[in-house]
């Protein structure tokens, strides 16, 4: 009986998480288009629903009913596999993400995470790396020059940012003496890691921008020079998969930044419910991502690699050394 209840709870949590993550891109696209509009002194979507609130729904219906086109010369197997490969890892990663300690419902303590892995951080980085295969396969399978160029850039981009990103969080692990995200947040109860790890945060954030493939590092789908990059040939629901994946990764990088460097659900000054603190911080980072997108131009991809190898990597190593000396 105990086991059944525990299992049922996990299934329920996973279902809730998946539904939440699948639906979240709807409001996020609306917010992004509104922010884009207002930064450019436009209004953004206005006509579907109040202030265009139903625009994402309309877009979703449009994408679902569009023809699902596969180019004649494409590699059909990989072409169909790629969107799923891009979509699944970001969802899987959220299994290891804690959203808070626990809440009590009807006298039972229910934890706000699916699992508390002791190597959660390692898991996150390992799984999120898989997402890149979706992008690479998608670009390759489409048999279009723009798509191939997009996925080539992704390869170059991936090796330049994943290493600094991995190194950047080592400082956090050293401070918390644990790789469990729960322990990392608990260790920040008094002082957030950003105070001790400004360099680590900087490296993590820049690499995270590259990870989420957002401007200024959205080389894989640079609209200006590559059509739409790796998903040029995708349409309909498969295209929607790539879009959802992009938004979930953006959310993931924000969540990781909050958990690793900004104290997770630990609040300051104002006593708010922990979950609300968490949501507010994540929302801030999501806003930051969108704000960046409509402010900065795109880096060339040799510049991205130069930044990755010549700036971020030495910085992250220096960060490890400094942390090691200062806190040992």
């Amino acid at each position, binding site marked *: 009986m105990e086991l059944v209840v525990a299992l049922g709870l996990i299934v329920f949590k996973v279902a809730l998480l998946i539904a939440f993550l699948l639906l979240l891109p709807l409001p996020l696209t609306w917010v992004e288009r509104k922010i884009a509009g207002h930064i450019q002194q436009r*209004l953004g979507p206005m006509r579907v629903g109040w202030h265009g609130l139903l625009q994402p729904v309309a877009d979703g219906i449009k994408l679902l009913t569009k023809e699902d086109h596969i180019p004649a010369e494409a590699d059909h197997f990989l072409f169909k596999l790629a969107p799923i490969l891009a979509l699944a890892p970001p969802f899987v990663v959220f299994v290891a993400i804690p959203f808070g300690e626990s809440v009590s419902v009807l006298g039972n303590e229910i934890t706000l995470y699916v699992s508390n892995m002791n190597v959660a951080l390692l898991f996150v980085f390992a799984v999120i790396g898989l997402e890149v295969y979706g992008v690479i396969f998608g670009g390759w399978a489409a048999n279009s020059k723009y798509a191939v160029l997009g996925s080539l850039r992704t390869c170059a981009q991936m090796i330049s940012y994943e290493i600094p990103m991995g190194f950047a969080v080592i400082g956090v692990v050293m401070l918390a003496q644990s790789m469990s995200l729960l322990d990392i947040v608990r260790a920040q109860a008094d002082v957030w890691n950003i105070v001790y790890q400004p360099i680590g945060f900087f490296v993590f954030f820049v690499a995270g921008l590259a990870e989420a493939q957002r401007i200024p590092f959205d080389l894989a789908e640079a609209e200006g020079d590559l059509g739409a990059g790796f998903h040029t040939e995708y349409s309909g629901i498969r295209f929607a998969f790539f879009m959802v994946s992009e938004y979930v990764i953006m959310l993931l990088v924000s969540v990781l930044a909050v958990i690793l460097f900004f104290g997770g659900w630990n609040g300051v000054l104002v006593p708010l419910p922990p979950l609300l603190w968490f949501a507010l911080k994540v929302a801030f980072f999501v806003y930051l991502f969108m704000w960046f997108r409509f402010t900065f131009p795109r880096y060339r991809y040799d510049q991205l690699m130069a930044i990755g190898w010549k700036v971020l990597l030495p910085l992250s190593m220096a960060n490890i050394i400094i942390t090691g000396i200062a806190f040992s």
Partner: protein
Amino acid sequence: MSRTQNSIGTWIGWTFFADLANGLALTFGYMFSRSVTMQYPDKEKWLPYSRYRGHHFLKRDEEGEIKCVACELCARICPCYCIEVVPYEDEKGNRRPLKFEIDTARCLFCGLCEDACPADAIALGQQYEFSSFSSRDLVIGRDDLLAKPGKAAMGGGVVAARLDTKKDVLVETSETRGYNWWRNIRRT
């Protein structure tokens, strides 16, 4: 000396991403400035200046007679051959158009017909909302042309509009002329 200081200052600025922060501050400021979007056709619309070349109209003289003398000069000068005039003699013995048709689907709104007309009978007005699902509807006859709105005295203003163009869309304007496009655009 000032130059070295400058370059040191630049380097310090670069280290702390002064230029990126500047850009972010600018876009943040813009985010809370007023938008310049004109919500046509939901809320407002642009009323063009009187020099605008929109839909043609035929004029009447003081007695309410059509001014056109059916000389066919406009049909001759028209680069698209989209005017067709058939003259007849009315009761008073004047030469008038029996048929006066403009195929606005082919018209390029060059305004040459207006320039060529010796009787000042035809002109291009400010109306620009006459799209149609059928190109046949775009062939406008004499009586329709006479009924078209003439040139408005004012222009360059923003007037309220409604989505339903079947109803009368022209509402009294709040800002009669010279809508200042730059008003909401901050230049720094």
